[in-house]
């Protein structure tokens, strides 16, 4: 039995089906990434798991129990807005959370936060605030962690450090469900689930998603050529020294841009795959 199990879950708001028969799971120690455009259904899926929204249809279970019944002490959640008290210090925030759960205050030195323990949350950078929020969410060692865009707006080193902490929680046995807008973070996840318009459009490992998918690269594109590619259903992307065209075959590119376009095939990256699936 997986720690997180979602079976054909749907959620309807009025005439809109926000989540449409979505299934996925996450085992103990596993990090599963939830990817999708805005409005794809990620946050609704997370809210159903947290017991904040009742599913219209389907089953959501955490640790073998219906998500809405599970003891909250088994859950850790970091919302996009972080949920910290900005007028309180780092130590006070953690003391408050720890006492609510009846556990000891986490070790600030071990978390590398000792130096800033007595600073107000409002005075800290976003990256540090995110680390504090994460520490607060897992101070009671939850079995399931739900993280809604935990690295948004943080610089690369800060993101790497946050991911170390997330991997640490998974290595200690937590099942982690994480949503992100950073496509390069998909490689941090053991598996990914991609949503578009409430439906699951891809599920598996990053390597499985990348296998065999190609884009066409060309040297330079003028504004007119860009328009021609777009009106033929392709997506042109400037990347370093070349343009990469998603969603068109080599033959189609030759037909639209002519044989002189110096078109070549190249393996797609994850962002390009996401775009070709999600749009």
């Amino acid at each position, binding site marked *: 039995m997986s720690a997180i199990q979602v079976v054909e879950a749907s959620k309807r708001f009025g005439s809109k089906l926000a989540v449409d028969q979505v299934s996925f799971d996450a085992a103990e120690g596993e990090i599963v990434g939830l990817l999708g455009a805005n409005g794809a259904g990620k946050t609704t899926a997370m809210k159903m798991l947290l017991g904040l929204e009742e599913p219209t249809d389907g089953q959501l279970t955490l640790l073998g129990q219906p998500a809405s019944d599970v003891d909250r002490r088994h859950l850790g959640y970091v919302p996009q807005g972080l949920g910290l008290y900005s007028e309180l210090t780092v130590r006070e925030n953690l003391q408050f959370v720890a006492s609510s759960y009846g556990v000891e205050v986490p070790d600030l030195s071990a978390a590398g936060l000792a130096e800033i323990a007595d600073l107000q949350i409002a005075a800290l950078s976003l990256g540090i605030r995110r680390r504090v929020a994460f520490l607060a969410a897992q101070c009671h060692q939850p079995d399931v962690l739900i993280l809604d865009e935990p690295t948004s707006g943080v610089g690369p080193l800060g993101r790497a450090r946050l991911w170390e902490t997330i991997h640490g929680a998974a290595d200690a046995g937590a099942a982690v469900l994480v949503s992100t807008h950073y496509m390069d973070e998909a490689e941090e996840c053991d598996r990914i689930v991609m949503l578009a318009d409430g439906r699951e459009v891809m599920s598996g490992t990053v390597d499985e998603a990348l296998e065999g998918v190609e884009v066409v690269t060309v040297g330079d594109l003028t504004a007119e050529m860009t328009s021609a590619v*777009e009106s033929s259903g392709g997506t042109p992307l400037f990347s370093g020294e070349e343009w990469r065209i998603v969603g068109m075959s080599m033959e189609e590119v030759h037909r639209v841009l002519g044989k002189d376009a110096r078109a070549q095939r190249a393996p797609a990256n994850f962002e390009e795959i996401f775009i070709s699936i999600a749009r």
Partner: protein
Amino acid sequence: MTWGLDRISVDFGTTKALDSVSLALKPGEVAVVVGGDGAGKTTLCRSIVGLQPISSGEVSRPDRVGYQPASSGVWRDLTVMENLRLVAGAYRLDSTHASDRIAELLEVTRLEEASNRLGGALSGGMRQKLGVAMAVLSEPSLLVLDEPTTGVDPVSRLELWSFIMRSASENRAVIVTTTYVDESRRGREVLALDAGRVLAVGTPEEVVNTMPGAIFESSEPQHGSARSWRRGSKWRIWVEDGSTPGEAVPTNPDMADVVTVAALRNESGL
């Protein structure tokens, strides 16, 4: 003609918000400024458009500059069309020209059907596209966009980038700031900032090729090491002196490695 910043510094009290930062770009070029929260991206944008007094250095900008602030600059209580008309009015564009230009921008941004919706009722991606359209409406020679893609989903981000590239192709210099390192490859020029200091600058290729030292990859956990960080299921190790760390294998650095190494050195004084 080149626009940009020459060794500018901006002091806020005792804090150096920008510390001798330079960036130069020509018409038709896109420069990407990458950095996290507090890096100095907004101060840089405000300095180049003339909203922020600088402590030292020089700024060169054309007469006509388009600027989109990080808040998107869209009036939430006005419709899409009213937002665009208001900007056209502020620039005193003649009404026929303004109507043509607005129609063209609505088509390119695919906002035609939303033209009567309130700015506040748009999705994040649509609002940012409107913000860029407003900044480019007066056909400025220099366009400065502060975090247009933050919080915008990948599909809409791409539409924004294709709009930005199109704007640059009209012989316009464009500066775009972002927190997404992978977007640095959309620029001819990249400037990585951290706490007001330059971490790296140059073409994406130059920046990657001139990284000091080398990157190794290891399956062994490297907890607590100041020169390593986790990436996916592996650990990256930065080595400066040509040695090989244990079981690790050398790997080609990418932009994320370069920026991470620079931030490590900045953080710990390595």
